[in-house]
Structures are given as structure tokens and as C-alpha cells.
């Protein structure tokens, strides 16, 4: 169970890296498209048709951000109930909480663009919390194994 917990937490952390890469790919592609005389307007965006290299980045960002990562975080919290490590649930809850805030910010920043500043920064908090949750159960797992070994020798 610890392995699963750790794997899911690393998935969330990797997801954040994918998000950063995808959005930079998207923005880069859009700026290039505009420089070449292309036009990005509401008609193009709502047509959901790929017009330029990099547009896929926005799609990946939406699917991973609103789908993959939140689902992984929910799974992490469920798995946490089967992991016998102190505060595994607390850290899973923290990860989920940060992600819920992140998704909310992601939807709301179209309304209030300044929220994008927090959205970008909060991503680092998600990454940190997920990586920490992943590392600490594995460390705790190694500690328990070593403890068990010494117990065996003593007995």
C-alpha cells in the first residue's frame, strides 16, 4: 500500500511538471502563430480545431489539470486510509486541498486574471506537498523494515 501511495503522490508531482511544460508549449505556439500573421480570437478558440503547433498544450493542461491530477489526489486520500504511516492521511488531504484550490483558481482566472499569479505559485506548493508525501511514506517504510529486522535479531 505504501508503494501505491507513493506512486500516486509521484504521479501528482509529475502531473505538475506536465502542466508547466504544456502551458509553456501552448503559449509559445500561440505567440509564434500570431507572429506569422495568425489570429487567435473567440471564433477560433470555440471552434476547438487545432490551428497551430502548441495548441495541444492548452488541451493537455485542461485535461491533466481538471481531470487526471484531481482524480489522482482523490485516489491518494482513499489509499491513505490503508497506509499505516502517521499523518499519511493528513498529507493526502493537504495535497487534495491544494489541488482543489488550484482547479478553482484555474477556472476563475479568466474572470480575474490576477488570480493567475496565485495559480502559478500554488502549482509549486502542489508539487512540493505531493513530493514530500511520496518521500515520507517511503522513508517511513525503510525505517519500519530496519526496525523489524533488529526485532528479529533480538528474538
Amino acid at each position, binding site marked *: 500500500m505504501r508503494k501505491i501511495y507513493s506512486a500516486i503522490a509521484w504521479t501528482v508531482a509529475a502531473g505538475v511538471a506536465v502542466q508547466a511544460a504544456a502551458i509553456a508549449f501552448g503559449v509559445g505556439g500561440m505567440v509564434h502563430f500570431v507572429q506569422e500573421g495568425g489570429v487567435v480570437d*473567440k471564433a*477560433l478558440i*470555440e*471552434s476547438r*480545431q487545432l490551428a497551430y503547433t502548441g495548441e495541444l498544450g492548452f488541451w493537455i493542461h485542461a485535461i491533466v489539470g481538471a481531470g487526471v491530477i484531481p482524480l489522482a489526489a482523490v485516489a491518494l486520500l*482513499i489509499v491513505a486510509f490503508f497506509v499505516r504511516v502517521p499523518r499519511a492521511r493528513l498529507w493526502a488531504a493537504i495535497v487534495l486541498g491544494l489541488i482543489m484550490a488550484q482547479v478553482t483558481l484555474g477556472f476563475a482566472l*479568466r474572470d480575474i486574471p490576477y488570480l493567475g499569479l496565485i495559480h502559478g505559485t500554488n502549482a509549486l506548493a502542489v508539487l512540493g506537498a505531493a513530493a514530500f508525501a511520496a518521500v515520507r511514506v517511503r522513508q517511513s517504510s525503510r525505517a519500519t523494515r530496519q526496525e523489524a529486522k533488529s526485532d528479529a535479531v533480538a528474538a
Partner: protein
Amino acid sequence: MQSRRSLALRVLVGIAVATAVGAGALAWSSTLLGEYSVMDMGGAAVDVSGVPSEHTGHSGHTGHSAGPDTSAGAVSVTTLTADPDRPADVHAELIARQERVDVPGGHSIQGYTVNGTSPGPVIRARQGELVEVVFVNESVADGATLHWHGIDVPNSADGVAGVTQDAVPIGGRHTYRFVATDAGTYWYHSHQVSHEQVEGGLLGAVVIEPAAQPAATDVAADIVALLHVYGGQHTLNGRVGDEQVAAEPGSMVRVRVINSDQGTAAVWSAAPFRVLATDGQEVNSPTDVLHQKLLIPAGGRADVAVPAPLQGAVRLQVGGARGILVGDPTATAPRPAQPAETLDLLAYGDPAPLGFDVASPGRVYDYVISRRFGIIDGRPGNFWTINGKLFPDVPMFHVSEGDVVVMKIVNDSADVHPMHLHGHHVVVLSRDGVAASGSPWRVDSLDVHPHESYEIAFVADNPGIWADHCHTLLHAVDGLIAHVMYDGVTTPFTINGEAGNKPE
């Protein structure tokens, strides 16, 4: 002790998860729609006028309605037709095919054509004429229909699959007949799997000339500018490129801009232009627009007057990507910078009588748009809600013929919604509590921006069952569709049944 408690906890969590999964599965299966009739959709919307009226019997409660007054004297939508004995003045045959669409100046895409091209041919008629269009589906696999966007047709000719007709299958045909009552710029498009078929090009323009030509004949040209994105390519009348209109200095060109896309289009110019009509309805005393852009909602139209300059040409930007050069055909004009300011149609032109009394409306409804997570037809997602309800539990707006209906459209979401009411024109009364102060602003497609609220009014003068939905068509797929239903009108058609009707 520790392990027993832990075991108990695990069992408890296991039971909780199993229960949650079971309840989730049950809830999921309860969202499956199967075959249904719009007659059974949602509940009667609550008339919020607060005035007890003879209507409260069927508008004052919610719950599943079997359609009020269906027992006695029910009128089927199929009987709401133009005079069947009157011969047609304008006749056309439109053949739909699912095939590659040639996009001159760009690359072809897999889509839909009408009579071999997309956009299809322009249907032209004179006000008062009876238009008869025979629609043939040669190869559109999902079936197709034609909806006459903005034209107040009789309900049977509205072309909404599963509401006013069955989708026309391959090899099938359907005849649309209507009187072109109002002059103006309109368009036709499929209303079967519309988010795919409209995007793929099953559409064309309709121009209805006024019965009597205006006395002033300084109009050098009258052209259609239909905007559509094919496979990520912005086109003007189906071509990736600008157009040139030769016009003598000082003469005027009428440009009928049709936004057949899924999002707002901006129109602007470095020289003054005038907005002659919105959604086919004339603006009273339009004035020059300069340093402002005109926004046309998805599905909306605007007729713009562009004077030819004394020398050279002037460029009218239609949509972000395309332009029309008016004047000397040998001259060019640079793309003008997009103005930051938007023309406010709430205060454009001079006031004029509306032609009906909005002071004591027969019905007052709210149409509040929001968004939440949920499941529609077994599909989880972040869906639109109307008055807090998810599709298909959205309100049904019941009206009686002759009612003056006031509706307050509120957008509590973060997206723009181009709201389109079939079969009627609405007049804007106010926005965010500010009363309209210009020409009567009549539309059939109205952009409601995030956190805006519009008060609109219309006269219920065209019996039937009429869709009232967002024209960013994927939003309609995701639940942003309701209906205005006249008392005593029923439909024999169903959605998701044998005929495969999927209007959105």
C-alpha cells in the same frame, strides 16, 4: 489492540467506499436519458412576476409536467405551417453531403457541403414572399435538418430534430415552407448534431430584401460576409482571404456580416461606419461609429454601411482575421488596429416605440446560467445549469399566445453565452439595471458576458415549441438549452429514439 482497531477502521472504510461506489453507480444510471420528449423535460418555470394571474395553475409549481392542456384541443407542431395552398414565390433545392470541403486559399477539411460547397448557396427572397426549400440528405450519416436562424418561421419549419421534425436520413427529403415576413440578414444551418454539422459547414446565408426599396439608392453594393472557421482556418464566404468591393467615392456598401462561428466576432474600421441592422432588424437612426468595435455574437448578424472613401480604399475588418476593402479596386489599405472600446448597442441610435407594452407583462421569467459538476446522460462533467438545474431538469418556459414575456437572463458563469431564441425576436430592455436608451435593440442572438444580466422582452406571437439556447453549440450539448412552450402545443417527435434525433 492496535491491529484490531485498525482492522475495524479498514473494514469501515471498505464498507464506506463500497456504499459510495454503489450509490454512485445508482445515481449515474438514473441520469441516463434514453428516448425522451421535450414535453417531459424539467418542470414549468416559475413566473417571478409575483402577480397572481390566470396562469398560476400551470406556472406556479414545479415538477415533471406531462405538458399542460395536452388532453383537450392539443395542437401538434406539425400543423403549425405556412398556408399549404399558397404557391411558393421562391423555390430552392438544397442537397447536403458529408464530404471534404474545399477551402480556397487554405487546405480542405472533412465536413459538410450544401449543393457541393460550404457555405451553401445564398437564399434570396423579397419580404412577403413564400419561400419553399426542398432539403435532400444525400450522405450525412447522422441525418440532418435545416434551421432558419433568426427567421420567425412557423414552428413546423424550425428544423430542430426531435422537436419539430425527425432528422432527415440519407436518401430522405423534407420541405420547408415559410413566409419571409421580416426583411434582413439571416442564415440556415443543420440542427441535428449541430455542434458537429454547423462547425463542419452545413450552413448558408439567407437575405430577405425589403418589400419596397428605400428611396435612397446610393448603395453601390450589397454583399454577404459570412464568417466561418474551417479546421482552424478563418474564412470569409468560404475562402481564406480578404474581399474587394469596387465602389465609387462617396457611395455606400452594405455589408451583411454573418457570424456562423461558435464565438463572438469583432467588426471595426479605421474610417466611420454605421450599423444598419442587428440580427436582421433595422436600427433607428444609426450614427457613425469610429474608434469602436462592433461585437457580433455567435449566430448573430449585423448589417454595416461602409462609405467608399474619396480616394483609395477603406478596410472593414470582419472578424479578427479577414477584411473587406471598399472603394478603388486597385488600392490597398492596411489592417487597422483593433479599438479597445466596444460599441454599446444599448445606447446606439434613436429611441422608437417598441410596438407592444412591456409595463404589465403576461409572464416574467428568470434564465440564470451557472455551472457545476454533475452527470448528464451518464457523462460526468462540469455542466451548465439553468436556474440552478442541470439538463434535463431545466425549466420549461410556458407561454400563451399573445403574452408579453419578460425574461431576465443572468450569467453567473465565467464564459460568454450567445443566447438564441428560436422563432421570435426579442428586444433588450436593460442591462445590469441600466435601461436601453437608443434605438430598439432587437436580436435573436444576444451575447451575455460573465456576471451581466439582461432584461429582454418578446411577444408570444408564434405558437410552437421553441428552443432557447446558447449558440456556442458545445455549451448546448453540455446542458445550456431550454424551451419556450406555448400552452396547448405538443410534439410527436422524440430525442434519442429510432429516428436518431440529437438536436444539439
